[in-house]
């Protein structure tokens, strides 16, 4: 049995002895309700769907990064006996459907009409009787391209002689996408001018890809008689997608039903609307039959939403004693051929503005220039909380560079500068209001779990012997749960979430939420949130998500927003139902409402606990015969829409230990200690799973993952043989712990944890590798730290990856 005390504020976790098979009526460890179907292979994904008469769609993609389309000959493909339709950009243009809006108010070609702008761009599609024939017919389409020089290097994309990519935009004469700034430039410059120490470092966060196990796809089914379109789709945001489809296609919103069935991983990859979805809808409209489109692995890696791709110049100003005064940065952001970033409208750089990290500064300033290049569009994804992983990477790397220059221990330097508990709520120099935090407590726990002083002693001994051991420290603050509707919207849609709870007569319940699980375990967590509030066991609560006809409106699951936003909605709707239940109970027990006391699962008369009614009794009464108190309607249900008052700010302290083989430069992650604080913990097992996944992501990005391009703009990461994802063999036994600092404004104090580990882990690993290379005089080396790139650093020539 477990000896874990989940309530203790600072706790190392002993997962090997944790008993997860518990049955709490509320928060606590329990096995996931959805797992029996997943582990038996009984999940129902989009590609499992088979409809009568269903046709298959395949997309012809551009083999080159930049070219004018001279001609497209579809004659041979049309003649294929199993082909039902071949559609080109010209066909769509005739219907006004060749272009669609992106989530950043740019436009993106559904099918290319004038020219192709990245390798893998959609050029034409085929609909055929089976997926094999559809693929075969693609090879029968003859496209003549007039190759143009591509824009590959983000640093020279704005050069006067650079070819202009977005010739579709009227009057566009360069590849400029947008400029953005935050913070106070003058104040920051002034602080830099008087600082004892200024450290500057160029830091690249290369392009990576979320690479979910399930690729993107959909089945579109348009019924001509009813005018009803049903779209089964890999969507992290079904409601937002439906509204966008309605606005773009002209189909009325009530005639569109978007269903996201089980989703095999999202990580942000399934937030955007991709041309393939639109093609499938068009095909079903034209042909009048259900049409399935599923990407293959290469299509997913080459064409869908990437992540990162920031070239950052980081500058930090400090006193010689190590008091950090200011951070300044300029970022060149590669947005690919179309600006498809999914972020709230007023935040074109996502939440990169939190680059001041966990430190109390005097000033901060960031300027950003975003450019178009001949690469796939996107820029949302990979568990980054809207670019916070880039921001935290910048600050945690530059702080380590400062520690290097000051010859100061990185823990000591951080400790001198962390925001103190009494400073919360803390308004950062870029205007973010951190809700709560007790940073040093988390740092201390991590240091204790790691045995930090012993590790440093071991490192000193090993350095004497010429062995390369590194210790990396990182502290991060996340900003999740977008967001308050006064500040945040996507394409004009406010980021509030609805929730509806209905108690059936027998006391079982159904909760309908607007967010959408991609594997996070919502069916369990949300049942537990309701159980905690209303005392019905999680097993008796069905959680429905992903179907726009079955759930209230809300913006979906990304940016770790499910628990902060939809979770709050679930808690509050439960309380609303409980309030009604209390009135009904007062009638049943013939006492006033004020004389009732809530004990989880029942109302009892104060001072006479023998007189009580359970929530199940109340549910039957609500639906049954007999009078209810005056003015009370029958039934026991409620609906709310929750508008968060602020973001929530989870945080954590991570320590990584690496060993580098001096002969081969291969990095081995020996230990990794992760202390997370996500506020109130609903299901510790699910939190641990989320953390483990994010830490593994971090190993991937730090050591091996990168979507690279050659000089012609060819994507070099088009398969999982080229784009490497870590396996169990590359990751250590995760040593995790937690502290609990509840959010003051969230109904249950929960902060969200889905992306914390992805936001915190790479920098700890990179910091460890760089620390190991200290004997070589290395202050910074960029990801991915493959053996070859580490060896370059050991030769004194660390090289940016792009």
């Amino acid at each position, binding site marked *: 049995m477990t000896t874990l005390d989940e309530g203790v504020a600072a706790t190392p976790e002993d997962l090997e002895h944790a008993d997860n098979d518990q049955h709490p009526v509320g928060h606590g460890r329990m096995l996931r309700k959805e797992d029996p179907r997943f582990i038996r292979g009984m999940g129902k994904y989009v590609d499992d769907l088979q409809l009568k008469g269903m046709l298959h769609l395949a997309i012809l993609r551009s083999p080159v990064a930049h070219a004018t389309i001279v001609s497209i000959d579809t004659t041979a493909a049309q003649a294929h006996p199993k082909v039902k339709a071949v559609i080109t950009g010209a066909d769509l243009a005739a219907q006004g459907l060749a272009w669609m809006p992106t989530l950043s108010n740019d436009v993106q070609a559904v099918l290319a009409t004038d020219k192709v702008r990245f390798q893998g761009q959609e050029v034409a599609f085929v609909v055929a009787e089976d997926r*094999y024939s559809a*693929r*075969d017919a693609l090879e029968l389409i003859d496209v003549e391209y007039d190759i143009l020089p591509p824009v590959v290097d983000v640093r020279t994309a704005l050069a006067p002689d650079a070819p202009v990519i977005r010739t579709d935009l009227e009057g566009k004469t360069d590849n400029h996408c947008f400029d953005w700034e935050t913070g106070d430039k003058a104040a920051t410059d002034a602080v830099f001018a008087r600082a004892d120490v200024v450290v500057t470092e160029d830091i690249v966060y290369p392009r990576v890809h979320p690479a979910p196990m399930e690729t993107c796809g959909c089945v579109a089914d348009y019924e001509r008689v009813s005018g009803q379109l049903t779209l089964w789709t890999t969507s992290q945001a079904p409601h937002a997608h439906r509204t966008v489809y309605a606005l773009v296609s002209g189909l009325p919103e009530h005639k569109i039903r978007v269903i996201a069935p089980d989703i095999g991983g999202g990580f942000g990859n399934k937030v955007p609307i991709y041309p393939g979805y639109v093609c499938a809808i068009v095909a079903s409209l034209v042909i009048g039959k259900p049409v399935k489109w599923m990407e293959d*692995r290469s299509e997913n890696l080459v064409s869908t939403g990437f992540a990162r791709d920031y070239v950052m110049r980081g500058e930090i100003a400090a006193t010689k004693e190590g008091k950090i005064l200011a951070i300044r940065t300029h970022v060149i952001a590669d947005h690919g051929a179309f600006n498809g970033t999914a972020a709230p409208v007023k935040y074109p750089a996502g939440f990169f503005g939190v680059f001041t990290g966990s430190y109390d500064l005097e000033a901060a300033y960031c300027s950003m220039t975003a450019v178009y290049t001949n690469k796939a569009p996107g820029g949302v994804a990979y568990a980054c909380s809207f670019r916070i992983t880039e921001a935290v990477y910048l600050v945690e790397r530059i702080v380590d560079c400062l520690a290097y220059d000051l010859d100061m221990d990185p823990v000591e330097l951080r400790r001198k500068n962390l925001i103190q508990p009494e400073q919360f709520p803390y308004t950062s120099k870029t205007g973010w209001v951190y809700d709560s935090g007790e940073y040093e407590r988390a740092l201390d726990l991590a240091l204790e779990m790691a045995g930090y002083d012993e590790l440093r002693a071991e490192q000193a001994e090993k350095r004497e012997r010429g062995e390369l051991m590194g210790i990396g420290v990182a502290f991060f603050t996340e900003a999740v749960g977008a967001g308050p509707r006064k500040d945040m919207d996507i394409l004009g849609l406010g980021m509030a979430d609805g929730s509806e709870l209905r108690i059936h007569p027998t006391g079982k319940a159904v909760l309908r939420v607007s967010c959408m699980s991609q594997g996070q375990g919502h069916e369990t967590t949300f049942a537990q949130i309701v159980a905690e509030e209303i005392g019905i066991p999680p097993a008796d609560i069905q959680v429905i998500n992903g179907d726009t006809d079955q759930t209230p409106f809300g913006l979906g699951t990304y940016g770790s927003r499910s628990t902060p936003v939809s979770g709050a909605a679930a808690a509050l709707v439960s309380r609303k139902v409980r309030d009604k239940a209390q009135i009904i109970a007062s009638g049943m027990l013939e006492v006033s409402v004020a004389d009732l006391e809530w004990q989880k699962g029942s109302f009892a008369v104060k001072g006479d606990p023998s007189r009580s009614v359970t929530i199940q009794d109340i549910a039957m009464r609500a639906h049954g015969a007999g009078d209810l108190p005056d003015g009370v309607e029958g039934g026991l249900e409620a609906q709310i829409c929750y508008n968060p008052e602020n973001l929530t700010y989870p945080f954590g302290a991570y320590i990584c230990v690496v060993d580098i083989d001096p002969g081969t430069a291969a990095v081995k992650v020996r230990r990794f200690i992760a202390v997370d604080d996500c506020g109130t913990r609903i299901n510790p097992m699910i939190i641990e799973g989320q953390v483990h996944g994010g830490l593994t992501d971090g190993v991937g990005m730090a*050591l091996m993952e990168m979507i690279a391009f050659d000089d012609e703009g060819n994507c070099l990461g088009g398969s999982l*043989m080229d784009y*490497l994802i870590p396996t169990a*063999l590359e990751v250590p036994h995760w040593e995790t712990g937690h502290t609990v600092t509840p959010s003051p404004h969230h109904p249950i104090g929960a902060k969200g944890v889905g992306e914390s580990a992805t936001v915190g882990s790479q920098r700890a690993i990179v910091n460890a590798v760089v620390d190991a290379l200290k004997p070589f005089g290395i202050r910074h080396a960029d990801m991915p730290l*493959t053996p070859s790139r580490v060896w370059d650093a050991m030769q004194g020539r660390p090289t940016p990856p792009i």
Partner: protein
Amino acid sequence: MQVPAPFEYERATSVDNAIDLLERLGDEARLIAGGHSLLPMMKLRLANLEYVIDINDLHNELGYVRVGTDEVRIGAMTRHRELLESPELAALFPIFADAEQVIADPIVRNRGTIGGSLCQADPSEDLTAVCTTLDASCVIRGRGGERVVTMAEFHRGPYETAVEHGEILTEIRIPVRPHGSSAYAKVERRAGDWAVTSAGAAVWMDGDVITGARVGLAAVGPNTTGIPAISEALQAQAPSEELYARAGAIAAESCSPVTDNRGTADYKRHLADELTRRTLRLSVERIQAGVAGDQGRNG
């Protein structure tokens, strides 16, 4: 889902039947063994074939490790997993287990075969380097009978071998010499990845003196032919760090790597040196510890 272009499928019942099918079906027919190289190429439509001749039923006929008095014979359909788990190979040639532990992953090792690996002739492929190191020879059978070629003759270059159309590789023969051992080392970006660079070494000794040494490299040039200059440099020498360093330097000079996503040419050249030294050192240590070599056969 990636799907291949249309193709016809035949299932061979014997080696002779496979040869008949190859002759009958012509140039657009290919044998498929484990399929872990050919199938992805077909799905990516890099290889478009009219016929696939499945030889997996020949595992009964060609799946074996037979230890003779002066050579070991390995059937071409012997799977990676069988090579990894073979006690005979572990006793005679520890290089096999060294290499097989780092070839792909268990799923691939359950299906992939030594014959398929050698015939694919990927320049980064590990077993070609192992067989080169061990001075193996290959038995190729066609309608006209069998011929036996050395690894140098077999491996003509990237994706090109001495196996002609209408022929099939049936067996790999490895000479057994007393007082020897071997080792393999690979640097990869991630478990299961192709080698950034690999090196294999085999050493034979008489007392304190090296009587023979061979080194084979993978992923550092168009082919992985052994390096005779190393064999010459080590002949009749007593093992020492200086000697390994000299061999490593020859390895680095002898290879011709290119820069790619896996690493720079300079780094790969460095690895050729480093891994040559490591595998020679480990081979000698194994001999001195009596771990392997010919003990399995004599004991």
